[in-house]
């Protein structure tokens, strides 16, 4: 079922508002607050330039905990045994998207993977929301088909 334009506009607005607030707070906290987990610092080590280093520091809050593993798998593949706890489809899609961002030459592969991962995650979240809307509409219109 198609989503009525009124609801679509409301959902897009709410999505953009909440995500913008979240991204803003996360980026600011990443710049000024010392992280509870420091394994993300590994991602900051081999930046290829000033812009690359700044982008990594800015995006680091989105790559904490499991995010580090997903990024390392996306950039370098499975290298260590414990990485196999993380399933391959998400790193594969990140890598594919990062390759599409290759024209951004001032950023290294790992930084592009960070950008791709954030875009992928948020885009998927929005499409999930639309799916839930469609599913709920179908259930309401024709329940227990």
């Amino acid at each position: 079922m198609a989503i009525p334009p009124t609801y679509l506009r409301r959902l897009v607005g709410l999505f953009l508002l909440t995500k913008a607030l979240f991204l803003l707070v996360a980026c600011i906290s990443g710049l000024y607050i010392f992280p509870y987990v420091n394994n993300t610092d590994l991602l900051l080590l081999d930046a290829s330039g000033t812009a690359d280093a700044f982008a990594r520091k800015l995006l680091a809050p989105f790559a904490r905990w499991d995010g580090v593993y997903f990024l390392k798998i996306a950039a370098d593949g499975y290298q260590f045994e414990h990485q196999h706890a993380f399933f391959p489809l998400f790193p594969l899609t990140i890598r594919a998207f990062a390759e599409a961002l290759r024209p951004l030459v001032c950023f290294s592969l790992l930084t592009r993977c960070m950008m791709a991962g954030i875009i992928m995650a948020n885009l998927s979240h929005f499409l999930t929301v639309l799916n839930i809307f469609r599913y709920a509409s179908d259930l309401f219109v024709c329940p227990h088909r």
Partner: protein
Amino acid sequence: MPVTFLCVPIADLPRLTAMLSGGEGSFAYVSAVFALVGPAFPFQSAIYAESLFGLLASTGLLAYYNQQVLLAALCWCLSSLTRSNGMLLAGFFVHDILCSLIQRKGQFVSAPFTSSLDYEIINWP
């Protein structure tokens, strides 16, 4: 941090509640809002597999409800490649198979979800 961002929909809750009885679209809208802003919001914004998993699982659910069984199977197969939880989605198939088996024994069982698998079995060449 999630509390900060929950404030936005919470401020909107009275209006959302009023809309619940408003019509079919508003029910779906409230469902979508809860799917958008929930406890998992930070995970669905960061570099985690939850979002992709949610997309594949919900696409499969939608396809299954519309009796597109193969598409649902494909989506849930891909969701299993994203997170191990995806394997549990096979439970929808198992549920429908069990329902159809019990129905054939002459017992009354309502199939609360969909009888798409039963449909496929009946129409098997």
